[in-house]
């Protein structure tokens, strides 16, 4: 009884305060939800509460985990004004809290841009495992908004640096690739691969280096390193990729691409320009490509579909190459097992080469089994085949590896 009288008196006194709303907003920012309830519950009961105060009360209820109370207020607000943006933001937040992501997304997409909208969309994407899109939403929140700090806290759930090392042994049916050169000569192969990822707030940097040694065709021992960067500016991003391959020390090639990209809904579009350089052969020149990539994720599986259109112009060799490259990758995690499957088809047209056309196919399933702590057993198979109108360029290749990998 005494508590009720105190809170009623507090509410009445508060109702006449000119700084009332500012105080409530400060309490909300500071997470002092109990104080808000103390000030507004009685005020609501006596019917003198404003729309703005109702929204603050609903947010305080939600902050305290009182979802049903928050829902009731939101319904009340939407009944009087179905397009009340603050109420719709709250409704979306409640739907996220309850796991109804599609419904929440539908509401949020219709609302005008605001820090809260971007924050909630980011949380939504984070909840379904699409970290890159979540980060792009968070990147659009201005530094001054409180949601920026919340978003930074959320991203701390992912480690900034992750290293992964794999050692494996296997068999390659055709490491020399072209049957005409060393016809179908297979070899036992040993492979080591290291991956290092930096997963920052705006930058994602992934480096990969691998070395494959062949027992019978040492000239084809392969060193490959790749560095990929993506830097976010809200919905825009800068993609860059550098790839270096050398075979047995006699041959190397590198290529570098950089450009710009943007997220359109859940699809990432990118446009890149680059240069390729081949040691020993005249195949140096500029390259251009455009890629559309769609990523569908849940925390335990994802599908990434992409299509690239590209063009290489090699003046020194007097030919041009157009290519189309659809690619997909999917993975599923269940208990101790992670199964993934990736594959692509590429179509090439070479000009000034007597009408040469190539169709390239790559399929690669793999299975990882968690053995102990962060150590996994890995089994992979890769099949690649090139169909060409010119016989010398036709080849088939199968690679099978078993190994062990672990986080370091």
């Amino acid at each position, binding site marked *: 009884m005494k508590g009720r009288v105190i809170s009623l008196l507090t509410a009445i006194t508060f109702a006449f305060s000119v700084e009332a709303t500012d105080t409530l907003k400060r309490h909300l920012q500071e997470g002092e939800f109990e104080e808000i309830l103390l000030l507004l519950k009685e005020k609501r009961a006596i019917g003198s509460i404003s729309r703005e105060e109702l929204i603050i009360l609903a947010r305080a209820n939600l*902050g305290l985990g009182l979802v049903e109370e928050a829902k009731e207020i939101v319904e009340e607000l939407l009944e009087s004004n179905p397009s009340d943006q603050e109420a719709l933001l709250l409704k979306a937040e409640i739907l996220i809290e309850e796991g109804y992501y599609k419904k929440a997304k539908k509401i949020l997409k219709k609302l005008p841009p605001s820090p809260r909208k971007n924050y909630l969309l980011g949380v939504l994407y984070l909840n379904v495992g699409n970290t890159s899109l979540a980060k792009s939403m968070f990147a659009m929140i201005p530094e001054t908004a409180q949601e920026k700090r919340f978003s930074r806290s959320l991203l701390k759930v992912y480690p900034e640096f992750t290293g992964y090392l794999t050692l494996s042994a296997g068999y390659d049916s055709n490491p020399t690739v072209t049957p005409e050169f060393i016809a179908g000569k297979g070899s036992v192969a040993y492979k080591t691969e290291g991956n290092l990822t930096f997963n920052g707030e705006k930058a994602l940097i992934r480096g990969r280096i691998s070395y494959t040694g062949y027992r019978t065709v040492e000239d084809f021992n392969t060193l490959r390193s790749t560095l990929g960067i993506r830097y976010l500016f809200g919905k825009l991003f800068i993609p860059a990729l550098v790839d270096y391959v050398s075979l047995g020390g006699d041959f190397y090639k590198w290529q570098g691409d950089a450009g710009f990209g943007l997220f359109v809904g859940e699809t990432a579009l990118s446009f890149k320009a680059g240069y390729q350089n081949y040691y020993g052969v005249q195949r140096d020149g500029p390259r251009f490509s455009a890629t559309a990539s769609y990523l569908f994720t849940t925390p*335990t599986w994802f599908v990434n579909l992409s299509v690239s259109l590209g063009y290489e112009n090699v003046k020194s060799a007097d030919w041009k190459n157009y290519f189309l490259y659809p*690619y997909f990758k999917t993975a599923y995690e269940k208990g101790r097992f992670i199964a993934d499957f990736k594959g*692509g088809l590429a179509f090439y047209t070479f000009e000034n080469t007597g009408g040469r056309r190539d169709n390239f196919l*790559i399929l690669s399933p793999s299975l990882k089994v968690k053995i102990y702590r*962060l150590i996994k057993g890995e089994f992979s198979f890769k099949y690649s085949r090139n169909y060409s109108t010119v016989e010398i360029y036709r080849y088939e290749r199968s690679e099978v590896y078993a190994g062990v990998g672990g986080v370091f």
Partner: protein
Amino acid sequence: MRILLILLISVSSILSVEVGKVEDYRGRVDLLKKDHLKGVLLSKSGISLEVGDILRTKRNGYALVSFIDRSKVELFEFTRLKILGYREVNLQRGIVKFEVESLKDIKGFKVRTPHVLIGVKGTVFWVYVFPGFTRIVVQEGDVEKVYKFSIREKSWEQVGIQPEVFIREEPFSEKPPFEAFLEVRLQ
């Protein structure tokens, strides 16, 4: 010592006894005592915590709490932690790191969130609470894993898969070198 702890567990939920204290804090942190209407900003370390108390960190706030069993809890900014009992807390929102002491014959440490109840024995783990999900990252004591709990599905899922979005196996990265290599070798 063990008998004393068992006794404390039994009485902590019904009596106002100290179950831990704020060892250290930085920035603005306040304590809302049980049955109080307003929180009071901390002005010194060593404040004792009782059942029903709520510790709230503000922007840039941080607090280190030690429990009687020597378990340690670190609260980062914008976090609300309610003491429900000896070895039992309710994390309403925010990020908290738990270092839980394992004690024989004594039940594990319980963490409630708006979405889930987590019970642990002797481990270091982080709990993140944000709209829709609670995530737990186990750092020591078991495998380093990230779990999430879905209210709707009412189930735990391990969060592990992160897609490689932008580094792909590209045929034009693989095919031409070998093709070019052939040209070199045939010359």
